[in-house]
């Protein structure tokens, strides 16, 4: 059975998020509580002339799955609804089919850290 991770609205005013880092490696097995990725949400939609209202979030898996395919990379901006990754319950399952449901995840507000894509340029 396939599960998908799409960018959902963490904040009602957001339209997009930037992938700050990806923790899991494709092909690996994830257990409940494993980190998937960190995201940044800029509610000013990038109008950088003002103090940007940026929040950072960590996405964590809430179930045991195989991480099969990643469609995003650090620094990439995703729109709400975009497909970010595909997971399967079996390690060798074909991933070109339709996902049965979204991956069950936890989202938590986190502090900015040096491992993030946005930290690399400053």
């Amino acid at each position, binding site marked *: 059975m396939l599960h998908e991770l799409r960018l959902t609205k*963490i*904040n*009602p*005013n957001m339209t997009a998020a930037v992938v700050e880092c990806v923790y899991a490696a494709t092909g690996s097995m994830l257990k*409940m*509580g*494993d*980190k998937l990725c960190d995201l940044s949400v800029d*509610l000013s939609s990038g109008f*950088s002339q003002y*103090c*940007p*209202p*940026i*929040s*950072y*979030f*960590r996405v*964590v898996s*809430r179930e045991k799955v195989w991480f099969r395919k990643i469609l995003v990379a650090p620094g990439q901006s995703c729109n709400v609804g975009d497909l970010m990754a595909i997971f399967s319950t079996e390690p060798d399952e074909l991933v070109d089919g339709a996902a049965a449901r979204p991956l069950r995840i*936890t*989202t*938590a*507000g*986190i*502090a*900015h*850290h040096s491992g993030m894509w*946005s930290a690399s340029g*400053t």
Partner: protein
Amino acid sequence: MTALALTCGSLAADGFVIRRSGMHWLRGDGYVCRPNEVVGYCNISLDQVSGQRSGNFPLADEMELHVAFAPPVAGCLRIADGRSPGGYLNTLGLHVWNSDDVLAHLEKPSEGDQSAQPASVEMRLLMIAGRRMSALADTNIGILPGWHSRSRAWWCDRSGNELSTLLCMGVCDAAGVVRGNETPFVEAFEATPSAAQLVYVPDHPIVPCAPILLEQLMRSPAQNEAIAADLSRGLTNGRVAPDSNDWMFAGALLASLQNSPMRDRYDVLTPTGLQHLGPANTILMSLNSEVRSILRHKKLGYAAQMLRHRQTAAGPAVRSWLASEFEPIRRSIDDIKRDYRQLIDAVAAQTGARILILNRMSTSGFEDITSYVSFDAPMSDTLENIAAKEMNLMLHDLALECDVSIVDVDAIAAELGGSQNLPDGIHHSAAMQAMVRSEVVHILNS
């Protein structure tokens, strides 16, 4: 209906002639205004009275100087043609200030014996002053246009009481409370009829966190010179060619490091003449300013921290200098508490000012944590909400130890609705700003 003439009102500065520009109306003819609602403004300037010489030219470093006008009573505003010539005549001080000049009329429903009603009333005057970051920043349209290293405002009343001063040294959460987000200061003063001066010092380029404010307060002229010489060497050492952004950033950085706004004294214009005020009575700070990691200069030892979006405003030479000459210093919560304590003690000794600190919003409607197993200890290093709760608790401990007052943003946001009014934990909605402003006034009056 009766028509009340709205006159300029009294404004005086001994030894100086006050000149004003034409009127900028913020509200149109026929607008129904509330009491104390600002409806227009003009620019003013001071000229020395002929034959007099003064070594001290008041407000000389505040090149933006406005008077905003507010009718003291409600009514329908009537603005006669020709009261506002427009163009540069609304910028330059062409008219000598005359308290009897009629600026507009106010129509009110007739009440009782009309012969007993006054024919005119003085406008209430809100003085607004801005010190430019550079004299080059002379945008001359609007209230407080351009770039200011300090701005302030006060009701210019005849109360006879000395003004008390609230100095805002915070980031966006505190700035919005004091300066508002519409016309600068007007939201705060329309809600605050008391005799107070509000002063705002921006957070660019330096974050006003406790160790930096303490060093500003204690730094000697020799240390200031050493900082300037080192910065100059950093920009001209040939490693990275500085561009115009570097020089402007460096100038603002130096101005910020070498001054302590907490020691500033103020000249204020009043209806009866100039008053000279001492340093701020109250300092408003943000817990959000107290970042866990600050930069410290490797050789000179001073602290300098900039918000990340400010650093991107610097050019390549400043960024290279910051990377090579500074090292990040991690602060524990105990370190932050110690830094606060040292600042509070130093301020008490030097100026006696009272400190108010806005705490942090410590909850979020945007998370769905069902288990904390995923997050390594100490969780406050990762999870913002836990970090905010620990910082808020530290502030309570601090308030038990010394004279500091907490403005409970956390409780106000929870009551008002954080997701709608404080979506990123630092930028408030207008409703949130109004409630925090009201809480600040309540604390000051208690």
